[in-house]
């Protein structure tokens, strides 16, 4: 089930909210059970079989965390059990997500024709596997108490607001909220507003921007031009931001509606002034996960320069691979790894001296190019698109198709540019504070408009089917 689907908005969410708030505040245990049941229904909507995997993962991590904690209490290190749990979790993720990729690579490299079946990916498996591992690692390191109640571990992993597109919630951030959290009308209202804004970002902006990019990708070379190629990739640049940050807004908003506080996942990444700055603002929960559980254990930056460079390359290749089982994602991650190394050791000091606008142009240029690697999985097509963007594909600078796309999408692109800065959010906040009724009317209008798009529009892509 997707947040941006009518079944979720019209049936699932209202029923879940009504039953949740019908349970007395004091019975948080019952509220948790209800949320867990709702989350399992939410998860099983598309593929009922994989709900078993979710339950298995919860039980397995619950038992293993218990054993690691017990072993530590008895004077042991718990390392072997931690490694066993890590291997099992990665085995599950690898089997579903990377088996086909591995076999395809083996066949290609060795010239073999081994038969295999690439399984459909259980939705959100990368998110809940990483959440499970964060719990295990934190228990192993003694940063959190082991959870005695298996239902709470299951709720932590399966909680539907952040299940399919994040943010990745670390157990230490939610541990206390499983036992005690505040649910009141103020927080519910705040969450509902955040949810509506996220829905608007996804349905009104991201879907239309995605349709623009998809349309341009389908154009024959004879109708393409350099400027059209840039319009297309700008469409995707904004699509992925509004789609992903919209989903995060919806997740954070839904969390608040049920009394949870999730950390922010995006902080206006497109106003960044360097690549390092961009990655402090983009998909923050994933960057933090890799920093805490891979980069720092590898030695981080407290080591020799060659080792630090190796650490960065490992982390960024893995970050790329996390986004999808394909070499283009590895290339995308490594591209950022190399740029971060260059910023750190070579060009960072020069970038610092640039005027603010130049820093911004530099960052956006690199980010926009990266989305070509990310969005087009076929290597030949990817390089062909890049060539067109830089006038190397034998295409004209602009043509009538360019004029058509400029005329039809300029408003959307301007709205997207404005929306990726903090100004509109500040405006909405001020509006809600100073003119409450006007603010509510505005939010309601966004919600109704998003619903109308969902009812009458046909293009509603789900970008996270690879995650």
């Amino acid at each position, binding site marked *: 089930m*997707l947040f941006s*689907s*009518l079944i979720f908005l019209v049936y699932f969410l209202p029923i879940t909210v009504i039953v949740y708030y019908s349970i007395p505040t004091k019975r948080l245990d019952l509220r948790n059970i209800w949320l867990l049941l709702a989350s399992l229904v939410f998860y099983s909507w*598309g*593929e009922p*079989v994989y709900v*078993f*995997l979710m339950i*298995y993962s919860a039980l*397995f991590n619950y*038992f293993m965390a218990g*054993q*690691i904690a*017990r*072993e530590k209490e*008895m004077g*042991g290190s*718990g390392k072997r*059990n931690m490694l*066993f749990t890590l291997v*099992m979790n990665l*085995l*599950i993720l690898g*089997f579903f*997500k*990377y*088996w*086909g*990729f591995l076999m*395809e690579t083996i066949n290609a490299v060795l010239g073999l024709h081994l*038969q295999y*079946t*690439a*399984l*459909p*990916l*259980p*939705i959100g498996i990368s998110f809940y596997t990483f959440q499970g591992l964060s719990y295990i690692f934190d228990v192993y390191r003694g940063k959190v108490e082991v959870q005695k109640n298996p239902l709470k571990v299951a709720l932590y992993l399966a909680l539907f607001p952040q299940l399919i597109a994040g943010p990745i919630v670390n157990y230490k951030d939610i541990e206390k909220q499983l036992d005690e959290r505040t649910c009141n009308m103020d927080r519910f209202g705040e969450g509902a507003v955040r949810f509506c804004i996220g829905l608007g970002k996804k349905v009104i902006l991201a879907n239309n921007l*995605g*349709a623009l990019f*998809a*349309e341009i*990708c*389908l154009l024959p070379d004879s109708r393409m031009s350099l400027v059209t190629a840039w319009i297309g990739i700008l469409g995707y640049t904004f699509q992925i931001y509004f789609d992903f940050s919209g989903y995060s807004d919806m997740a954070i908003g839904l969390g608040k509606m049920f009394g949870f506080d999730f950390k922010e996942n995006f902080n206006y990444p497109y106003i960044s002034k360097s690549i390092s700055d961009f990655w402090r603002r983009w998909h923050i929960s994933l960057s933090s996960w890799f920093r805490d559980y891979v980069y720092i254990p590898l030695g981080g930056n407290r080591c020799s320069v060659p080792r630090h460079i190796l650490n960065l390359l490992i982390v960024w290749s893995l970050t790329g691979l996390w986004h*999808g*089982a*394909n070499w283009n994602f590895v290339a995308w991650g490594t591209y950022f790894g190399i740029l971060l190394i260059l910023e750190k050791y070579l060009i960072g000091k020069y970038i610092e001296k640039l005027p603010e606008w130049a820093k911004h142009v530099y960052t956006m240029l690199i980010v926009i190019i990266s989305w070509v690697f990310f969005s*087009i*999985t076929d290597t030949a097509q990817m390089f062909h698109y890049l060539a067109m963007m830089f006038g190397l594909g034998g295409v004209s600078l602009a043509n009538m198709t360019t004029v058509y796309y400029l005329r039809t999408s300029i408003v959307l692109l301007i709205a997207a540019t404005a929306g990726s800065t903090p100004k509109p959010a500040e405006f909405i906040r001020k509006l809600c504070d100073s003119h409450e009724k006007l603010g509510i009317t505005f939010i309601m209008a966004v919600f109704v408009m998003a619903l109308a798009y969902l*009812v009458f*529009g*046909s*293009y*509603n*892509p*789900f970008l996270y*089917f*690879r995650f």
Partner: protein
Amino acid sequence: MNETKNPMTEEMNNIKKSRDPKGLGFFLLKILFIAVLAGFLFVVYKGAEAEDVDLAEIDAALKADTEFTAVLKDQSDRDLMQFIGLNAADYEQVLYYRNTQALAVDEVLVVKAKEGTSVDGVETAVRKRIESQITAYSGYAPEQVKMLKNAAVKKVGNYVIYCTADKADKYKEVVLDAIQ
């Protein structure tokens, strides 16, 4: 004085032993977890087994074993986007035929997802297409609505099959025969 063995104490010792992380009980629990996972993965893998078939072969099988080309026309990637809301570039291969006559709802869609990707989005898009078609035809075209309500949607491995037609199940079977 010889101590007699207290059965309760012995049982408690056994329980304590079984809760010992290095003990046999825990070892067996780990084996159980591995066995359950292996069993599940085997069942899922066998259930998802679908041959890696080029959609051109399925196209040929449909043309040979059914009469669908008489009414259905091959649709472009743009049509796929317009009517189903799917971007063909996101998938390995797509086969999409539709009856383009006014008031016709017949269509056949076969999507082969890229390896390592989920087909859930395809199924969601197909279900939405059926719902929107039912909404559009409700009230004045009962035959079409009936046909839409009997539409065949099937997910097998990395394929999704969708047919709205008089003989929707026949089309589905032809595709299934080709990939399984």
